[in-house]
């Protein structure tokens, strides 16, 4: 029973949502709408679960004094302070302490973290991106055209040439035809993969998401 009920729920909810897509009748859509609102609530709970897990991991790390447990303290303290300002008793609006922490701590941390990649990509460009085959060569040539054609520099470099020989035109043509075609092929293939997976889940053939233990 511990497996059958969830599988039945999955099947019924899935089937009903499929019907909702094809049948515009109001008796279906009214029920479906309320169910979608439930979906947002249950998904919120699943995110809560994720954050809860994070707390548990760091708590255990501190309790067992694992490597780097000091940093786990930082994590939990930072979290508590921010929650103190933004919890049920606090406010998250513009101008609040919570908002200040978001704008002046979270924003710079997160955006700087990812801007590191500019450096890494430059270093990899020099040290690892190789014309190891005809295919990789084609890739790099297309990449170089796009890199130059997508910035004002490309326009400057081919200024004066006929329109259809300029880097911006070449870039847009690559994007609109071969790039579009390949991505459309990938898109359709991926769509089939997702649909097959969805079918298996709704029919209960795929049940790994329920976890291992009985």
């Amino acid at each position, binding site marked *: 029973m511990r497996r059958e009920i969830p599988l039945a729920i999955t099947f019924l909810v899935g089937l009903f949502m499929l019907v909702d*897509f*094809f*049948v*515009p*009748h*109001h008796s279906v*859509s009214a029920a479906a709408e309320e169910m979608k609102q439930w979906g947002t609530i249950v998904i919120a709970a699943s995110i809560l679960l994720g954050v809860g897990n994070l707390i548990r*991991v760091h708590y255990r790390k501190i309790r067992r004094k694992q490597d780097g447990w000091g940093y786990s303290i930082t994590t939990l303290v930072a979290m508590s302070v921010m929650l103190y300002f933004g919890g049920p008793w606090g406010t998250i609006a513009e101008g609040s302490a919570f908002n200040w922490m978001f704008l002046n701590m979270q924003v710079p941390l997160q955006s700087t*973290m*990812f801007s*590191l*990649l500019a450096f*890494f*990509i430059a*270093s*990899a460009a020099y*040290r*690892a*991106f*190789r014309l*190891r085959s005809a*295919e*990789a060569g084609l*890739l*790099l040539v297309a*990449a170089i055209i796009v890199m130059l054609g997508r910035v004002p520099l490309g326009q400057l470099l081919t200024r004066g040439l006929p329109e259809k020989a300029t880097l911006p035109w070449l870039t847009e043509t690559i994007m609109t035809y071969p790039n579009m075609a390949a*991505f459309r092929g*990938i898109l*359709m*293939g*991926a769509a*089939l*993969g997702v*649909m*097959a*997976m969805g*079918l*298996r889940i709704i*029919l209960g*053939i*795929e049940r*790994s*998401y329920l976890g291992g233990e009985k």
Partner: protein
Amino acid sequence: MKRTWLTFLAAAAVATSLLGAAVAQEAAPVVEEEVPREDVPLDTVAPAAPGALTARDYLDSNDAGDKIELDWELSPDDGAGSCDVAGYFLWRSRSASSPGEIVAELPSGQTHYVDRNLEPGAEYFYSITAFDGTNESAAVTCAPVAGRVNLFQTSRASILALMLVFFGLVLVFTKLAERGDELFVRRIPGLNAIEEAVGRATEMGRPVLYVPGIGEIDNIMTIASLTILSHVAKITARYETPLIVPTARAVVMSAAEEVVKQAYTEVGQPDAYNPDNIRYLSDAQFAFAGAVNGIMLREKPAANLYMGAFWAESLLLAETGFEAGAIQVAGTAMVSQLPFFVTACDFTLMGEELYAASAYLSREPKLLGGLKGSDWMKVVTIALVVLGAVLNFMGFETFVNWFRTQ
């Protein structure tokens, strides 16, 4: 069991198409009523009433029947005559006896409106008046009208049909695979590359590094990666080559432990399994990449295999591995990371190849069924695209328009 399903799906397909055809007849427009025109001279009086008002079910056989489309002729004083029409009031009522309430105030010059969010299928009475800011003209009415309640979105018939064909293919092939039929899947060249890489590591007496990505355990790329890991582990177990598996997720680590341990047992080398080589490094993306790079520099693996879900760290890993001179084979369906793997690795399994490799190795019926079903659906797709393009070029649009979903 599966046969019942197929029959059910086929029956559903037939039934829905018939139903769709039956319901799809367009609603006939309601005949409008002529209203005598009152010629009104000047601004102290109301403007002339608008011309004939027509109301009909919104011409879309796919809606829930909650929309009514209205058209009217301009008042003679709108843009002409005494030129004093400021706009129109559209009235709606559930009974013929009262004008009901104003549902819309429309600017002068407009002759069209779609009234929405009505009770599906209910009968409504509409009337329209012109106003000049102070005075309102006589009302023009039309016959009662009701939205048509549809049971099937006919514009989505092509989606349903192709979906059912595809689902049928997937289920048939899954059934065949379960029955033990030989389903041919070509060998993915990337698998040979993996085996060569492991072979070379053995020759050099150096370890193999296998990174299963930083996806969670429920990510299908991670799942595919674990299947390939099992294959790799069997080879390293036979050759007695150390296999290092760094992970970014605790759950993936325990899964990887299981997979590797079982692979070593299966080839009769349970003692060669070293649990210390399956490691959890860090959940944080860059910390994980940094730690893996550390392993590359210290333990000098001769083969680096990256299989699974990768994000921005792909670049850091492949660069360091390249620098260290290892043979590198990658596989991911993360399209934005593929370019970096292609240029920095010796071989790359791209997109669906990763899933195909895992189906090829595991021979699991549900994976094979999906793979074969998708394959033949691609054949159908190409045939449809070519046929459609030719017919469209020649001007036969009926066929092509059936695939239009909006």
